[in-house]
């Protein structure tokens, strides 16, 4: 083991290896953050459709969920990046002209966002169904519309209930960004492999990457835990116990 390697500059480049890995880390974080926004928004919408009054919307939501969670992630990356532009001529023209890293980033965030949204949709559905019918009926009896019922009664409690599985979903999302190496996005795993291939310092490179992924995942975990405590309402289902 020789940790000095991180300070050495890359061949044919002015940057040191640690800077290279740090730029990869930047792409990883950006990709995870954007995908998380997509995943939360789409996942909540699909989760609502799954439990709402409209039978057609519920059926469409089931198809959506099964489609995105049954196809292996690496295959989805391939489909978004290589296949989708072939099916859509205007998109293809844009993709040829655009900066490759922008195309890779958009493909990666869409892919990860929608993949994760299917999983979050199921958690939102489970959370809503765990509340029992009484809440919904009481809200409607008070004259709230269906939308108001979700906005003011069901979702606020649901999100408190599903904070623990959402936390693990966020941690999974961070780690799943590594699969974006397969479409050439220069994120952390891509840079780690590249460093290994060029310097043959696989152990040092992967040790650094392992540490970085663990730190991000743990930070995500702590942040979610903090939110979970801040939003806890005593007496409501899913309230975090203070002992933890």
């Amino acid at each position: 083991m020789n940790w000095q390697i991180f300070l050495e500059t890359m061949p044919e480049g002015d940057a040191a290896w640690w800077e290279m890995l740090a730029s990869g880390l930047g792409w990883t974080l950006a990709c995870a953050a954007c995908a998380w926004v997509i995943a939360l928004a789409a996942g909540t919408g699909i989760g609502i459709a799954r439990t709402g009054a409209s039978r057609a919307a519920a059926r469409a939501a089931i198809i959506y969920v099964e489609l995105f969670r049954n196809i292996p992630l690496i295959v989805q990356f391939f489909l978004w990046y290589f296949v989708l532009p072939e099916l859509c001529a205007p998109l293809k023209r844009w993709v040829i002209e655009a900066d490759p890293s922008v195309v890779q980033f958009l493909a990666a965030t869409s892919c990860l966002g929608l993949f994760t949204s299917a999983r979050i949709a199921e958690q939102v559905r489970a959370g809503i169904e765990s509340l029992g019918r009484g809440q919904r009926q009481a809200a409607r009896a008070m004259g709230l519309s269906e939308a108001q019922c979700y906005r003011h009664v069901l979702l606020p409690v649901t999100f408190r209930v599903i904070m623990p599985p959402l936390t693990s979903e966020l941690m999974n999302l961070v780690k799943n960004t590594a699969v974006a190496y397969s479409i050439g996005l220069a994120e952390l795993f891509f840079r780690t492999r590249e460093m290994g291939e060029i310097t043959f310092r696989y152990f040092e490179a992967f040790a650094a990457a392992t540490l970085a992924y663990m730190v991000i995942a743990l930070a995500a975990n702590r942040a979610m835990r903090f939110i979970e405590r801040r939003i806890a309402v005593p007496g409501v289902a899913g309230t975090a116990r203070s002992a933890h």
Partner: protein
Amino acid sequence: MMIRPDSITALARALGLTGLVGALAASFSCALAQDLGGTLKKVREAGTIVVGHRDSSIPFSYLDDRQAPVGYSVELCLRIVEAVKDTLKMPALKVQMQAVTSSNRIPLLQNGTVDLECGSTTNSIERQRQVAFGLTTFVTNVKVVVKKSSAIQSLADLNGKPVATTSGTTSVQLLRAHEKAKGIDFREIYGKDHAESFLLLENDRAAAFVMDDILIAGLVANSRNAKDYRFLDEVLRTEPYGIMIRKDDPAFKKLVDDTLASLMRSGEVARLYARWFTSPIPPRSINLEFPMSKELAEAIRSPNDRGI
């Protein structure tokens, strides 16, 4: 052999040369351990020799339709294995084939999982710090392939255009070096393997693909429209391929080199070359039509293991 520290100290004190003798004893026992730790000893004790091969380095080392490793490098390695059997007088020596990838070939060789690697590995000075190479068995030119329909005639025409290459290969560094030297700005796109890099060119997502000419020839020969592609004349770099073995193992290195040199002298290497590079090969009976370069002919006339 165990050397008790107190016996060294006693000896050194007796001779009045504490530091010097200590250092000599230490270096001597190191050299001894390395000689005994060679590949030949390992193979004799295990009764098995492990040959590392690739799964899709056509036509060097790849899996045929029965999933058996075949190819030019694999055949050369099997001749070396025969020589090992003769040297150790172990005709029943077991030969185990182990698949390796471009990422794990060096670690697996170093940690003893494989005893020699038969693929398409560039003999580079950088790699020689980690491993050793047998005599050069192939010479590749790193070249640029474009579509015939494009107007690109030289590397300079690629300024501002997307250029595909495979992540983690030496071509990545070559491209960057070329950019710096010539003030050209490519938009690099990376495929995770050669097939995906080629797909980027095939789908017009990249204007060019930079890679070893023989690997490109294999991809082109297997593509839907093999006649659609052409090479640019410029050669970015010429690289020797060699069979990879562990470093600091002179006995095994000599056996590998002697075997290859005699195959080169007898014309056997030229026959093997014709079989894999200019004849139909399994699994789809495609002919790469890749005649021997003058660089390789020279390397066969005067065998050497110079890296780049």
